[in-house]
């Protein structure tokens, strides 16, 4: 198979495990390109991509922009910290205005779950979901799984614990779908108020004790506390969260095995993850960032192929 089964990347839910494998194989090639002295390939020449971000983002937008530029695409950026509807313009109007300038692909981040799905029914360009509210963040899950594969050789059969604010995390959902499609076992761990009540229906284990989760897993993906997405209080204080759900070096030293530590960033140092772990040899956080560019190049390249 050399083509994706879909013309949009809306979520991991909507793609097959073959799609994921194809993305990984393509990303392997692009990673090799990124380590060359000349990191640019002409694959998307004459393709214009709009990065439309309705939520603040630094690394995802930068990662996409780099991926696009290294594929020789023309890039335009649109950022707004509020949804367009709050400014009196609808999402379709905003995007159609940008598309009128002959844009071929749209990379969109939006605070509403399903916003890229809505858009996909109303515009003709390819859409890449760069995060939609508390729903999915498919390229993050792909780069996470790609990084696990790189570090441990395979994702199949591995035990991955996702620790932290699961309720407000699009990374958690996409990771669950992606890891399960690749044959990994998934556990979620955090305060009960930050774990969706029905999460077990997705076939994941649920744990409230971080130490037990760390003992169980091969890989711990520590999630950021999404204070910006919490509309009400879910736990008493950051201090208490850090004491009972934060991961530190001492905890890792107590384990009878070595585990891999991941974090999608940006890290709240001293809250969900201590510096002595984030900067340790267990951590592959910076490799995740590096892989992000290669994986996003693969996604954009393959989607352009099904235009």
């Amino acid at each position, binding site marked *: 198979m050399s083509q994706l089964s879909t013309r949009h990347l809306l979520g991991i839910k909507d793609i097959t495990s073959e799609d994921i494998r194809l993305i990984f194989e393509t990303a392997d090639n692009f990673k090799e390109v990124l380590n060359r002295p000349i990191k640019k390939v002409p694959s998307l020449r004459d393709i214009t991509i709009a990065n439309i971000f309705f939520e603040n983002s630094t690394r995802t937008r930068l990662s996409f922009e780099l991926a696009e530029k290294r594929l020789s695409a023309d890039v335009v950026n649109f950022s707004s910290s509020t*949804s367009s*509807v709050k400014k009196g313009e609808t*999402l379709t109007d905003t995007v159609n205005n940008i598309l009128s300038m002959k844009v071929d692909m749209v990379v969109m981040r939006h605070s509403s779950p399903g916003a890229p799905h809505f858009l996909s029914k109303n515009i003709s360009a390819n859409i890449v979901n760069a995060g*939609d509210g*508390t729903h999915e963040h498919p390229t993050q899950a792909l780069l996470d799984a790609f990084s696990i594969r790189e570090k441990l050789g395979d994702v199949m059969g591995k035990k991955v614990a996702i620790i932290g604010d699961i309720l407000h995390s699009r990374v958690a959902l996409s990771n669950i779908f992606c890891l399960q499609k690749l044959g990994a076992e998934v556990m979620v761990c955090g305060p009960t108020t930050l774990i969706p009540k029905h*999460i077990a229906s997705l076939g994941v284990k649920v744990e409230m004790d971080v130490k037990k989760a760390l003992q169980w897993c091969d890989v711990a993906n520590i999630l950021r506390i999404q204070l910006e997405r919490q509309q009400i209080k879910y736990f008493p204080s950051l201090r208490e969260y850090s004491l009972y759900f934060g991961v530190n070096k001492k905890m890792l030293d107590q384990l009878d095995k070595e585990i891999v530590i991941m974090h999608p960033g940006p890290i709240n140092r001293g809250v969900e993850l201590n510096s002595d772990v984030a900067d340790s040899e267990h951590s592959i956080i910076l490799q995740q960032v590096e892989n992000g560019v290669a994986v996003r190049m693969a996604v954009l390249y393959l989607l352009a192929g099904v235009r």
Partner: protein
Amino acid sequence: MQTFFNMAKLLRSLRFIDEKSVNSPRDYIYNGFEIFEKPENFNEEIDESIDCSGMMASRGWIDLRCVTAEPGEEHKESLESLGELLAYSGFTKAVVLPNTHPAVQTKNEIQFLKTKSEHWTTELIVNAAATKDCKGEDFTDILDLHHQGVNIFGDGLNPLSNPDRLMKVLQYLQKFDGVLFDHSYEPLLSLFGQMHEGEVSTRIGMKGIPNIAEDIAIQKNLEILRYAGGSVHFQTLSTGAAVESVRKAKKEGLKVTADVSIYQLLFLDEDLSGFDANLKVVPPFRGKEERAALIEGLKDGTIDAIVSNHQPQDFDAKHMEFDLAQPGMIGLQTFLPGLVKLSDELDWPLLIGKITSGPLRVLKVKEMSLSEITVFDPSETWQYDKRSNLSLSANHPWYGTTVKGKVKFLINGERFVKL
């Protein structure tokens, strides 16, 4: 739509349904006021003979819950369009909710509704706000409004969630045996909720509204009813536990009745996986088990009525991101097609009972005369689209599809309406 006044009609081969049975086809006479079975030696002059083969008839249908957007948002539904819609949809009586701008809370608004609906074929029954602007705080002038002919009070789309307010309204209404209509749910447990909380909401990352938001509110309000006395009618039940609470309360002898939205019986939460904002409603579509409990509640009489819960929203209020879209679905023109779908599972006498004798019990009306009749064809198909849609809104997932079931005639006293 053609309306005839005081004209005699012969309706041939019509199957009459009541809450107990479906009669075999017979001929009926409409004498310009009411209908009756044609006597053998009937020799009086009639103006028209109509072949009603394949059609069914029942006493006129009653909708206990629909919204008009006038005054305030006339572009979504005006009283003129609502009147036409109700007639086309087979309703001879309809309770209209108070959630307009301004809310239906003074003599002026009631007079406005009465004047605007004077020419309607359907009788408009006012549900006046129990609290000012339906905010659940200060009471409206309930007795004053009752003297304008209002017997139903409640805040419509908003629950009366303050227990003190609910208790006092229940007590106050007892002076004239009025009924409190309440769509009970606990707002603090529904905060930011967009759909039913369950596997589907988890899968699509949408903030959920748990069953207990409704379960707790119904239990709490039944306790208050037990203490304060009075009559309460729970609108749009959606959970099995709520049905069970009402079932027990009825057995106990409390003055409680309940209804369910027709579309609550036609859709499930899993239908929302594609983020179609037309399916965003309150209460939210729930899972199969809850739906089965609602069906059971209809069968054993716990749920007295099926309502249209007609809530118009214009294109711009729905054509957007799911969590930003307004809730609500229209439900009048699709009401009969909905009943036809349900008739695979529930028999016609039961369905008809839920829109005739059941609502009458809720409204505390003893007997309905034979001067209100709805005649319909359950097998006629029609295209539900821009041409046939009579609402000013189109927020229904069946819009643009072919549906089955068409209301043919509506009789309300001296009016005989061909649809």
